């Protein structure tokens, strides 16, 4: 599949079009909305389905050095990307050190919804991928937050005395992580037999539910852009567009040495290029409350997420095919 074909297939998929519908409806001030409880239930479903399926793959292949290598690479990428992001933000924008550290944390961590959309784009391209990428996704949530805290504490020495233990526990026990890892472990224990038992629930309905969830994400992103877009300067918006590409190239370099399939490489690149908007914003409200959520949440959700979903994914698949020697 050529780069153009990948882009067309992605942009015309129901998932992306439902996101665009939500985004446009929010910008047009439609009263279309998804109640919070339903949005949370949809997110739980997606974590369950993606975690379980990843675990089933591990049940088939077992834990090996390739998996550990990918997890190590993911953790390293998550720690390094915020350092690059922070440096670029301080060089190119007028954000304070604390705001820059908070934004950088979002770009080092990952968006699990972008990952889910990435798995669909990879399936659409007909590429298989390694199930352990789900574990890589979960591991990549945290290092970025710790690096951002170190950056912020360097900039604000009065914050050094605060304990990080409680924060680490809160991040580690974040509901989406618990659901993802828990489902992954259950999938790994029960294997194909377990999958057969719940496949009618997590198989066929998956794409339809993803459409509904992405409609909601479009609504939230559009609303965020409408309300918070004016707070973002042009250099900050530009960061939200070029930083995913820098992260993608960095991850692609890792893929040159990691024994990943094209599908697996595409997902590692997608994870690296994505920016968190669920776990990290909540962690930042506790760890760096002085940082302005209107900046980091709007940038991550209303700029980078739509970019990744529409333009980024086909680019990452194209890149993955080049670095992993696939299609």
């Amino acid at each position: 599949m050529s780069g153009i074909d990948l882009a067309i297939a992605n942009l015309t998929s129901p998932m992306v079009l439902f996101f665009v519908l939500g985004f446009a409806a929010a910008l047009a001030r439609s009263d279309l909305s998804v109640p919070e409880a339903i949005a949370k239930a949809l997110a739980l479903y997606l974590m369950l389905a993606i975690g379980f399926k990843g675990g089933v793959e591990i049940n088939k292949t077992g834990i090996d050095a390739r998996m550990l290598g990918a997890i190590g690479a993911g953790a390293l990428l998550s720690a390094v990307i915020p350092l690059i992001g922070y440096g670029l933000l301080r060089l190119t924008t007028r954000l304070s050190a604390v705001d820059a550290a908070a934004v950088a944390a979002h770009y080092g961590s990952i968006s699990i919804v972008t990952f889910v959309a990435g798995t669909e784009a990879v399936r659409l391209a007909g590429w298989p991928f390694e199930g352990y990428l789900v574990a890589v996704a979960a591991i990549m949530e945290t290092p970025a937050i710790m690096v951002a805290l170190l950056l912020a504490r360097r900039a604000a020495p009065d914050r050094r005395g605060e304990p990080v233990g409680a924060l680490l526990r809160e991040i580690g026990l974040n509901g989406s992580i618990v659901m993802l890892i828990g489902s992954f472990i259950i999938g790994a224990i029960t294997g194909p037999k377990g999958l057969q038992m719940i496949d009618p629930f997590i198989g066929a309905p998956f794409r339809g539910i993803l459409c509904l969830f992405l409609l909601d994400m479009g609504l939230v992103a559009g609303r965020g852009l409408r309300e918070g877009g004016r707070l973002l300067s042009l250099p900050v918006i530009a960061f939200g567009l070029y930083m995913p590409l820098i992260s993608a190239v960095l991850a692609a370099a890792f893929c040159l040495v990691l024994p990943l399939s094209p599908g697996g490489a595409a997902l590692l690149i997608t994870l690296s290029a994505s920016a968190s908007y669920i776990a990290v914003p909540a962690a930042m409200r506790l760890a760096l409350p002085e940082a302005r959520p209107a900046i980091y949440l709007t940038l991550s959700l209303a700029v980078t997420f739509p970019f990744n979903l529409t333009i980024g994914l086909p680019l990452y698949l194209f890149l993955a095919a080049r670095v992993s020697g696939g299609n």
Partner: protein
Amino acid sequence: MDMHPKKRIEIIVEAPAIHRLTAALESAGVTGYSILPVLGGRGSTGTWSRDGLVGGAGQMVMLICITDAGRVEAVLDHVMRLLSRQIGIVTVGDVAVVRGERF
């Protein structure tokens, strides 16, 4: 019916900070409180709404507790140690309760 004068403390705070807030209240000797979701609103930091949100950031919750007037200052000390850096609103009002021994 006998009524007992008490103070009602209302705190609107960011959802991710609620567990820290309740811990602060408990360490200040507050024995009970209620937590309500805030559907949406607008303040100096912008507009917020719960609709469609999956994570806690961007959501606000309201905590209500009723306490003796003599304990309000100590409670607010504990609360403000946490909230001075968070987005939120703290108000204190006069109320009367029927079962005074409970607060």
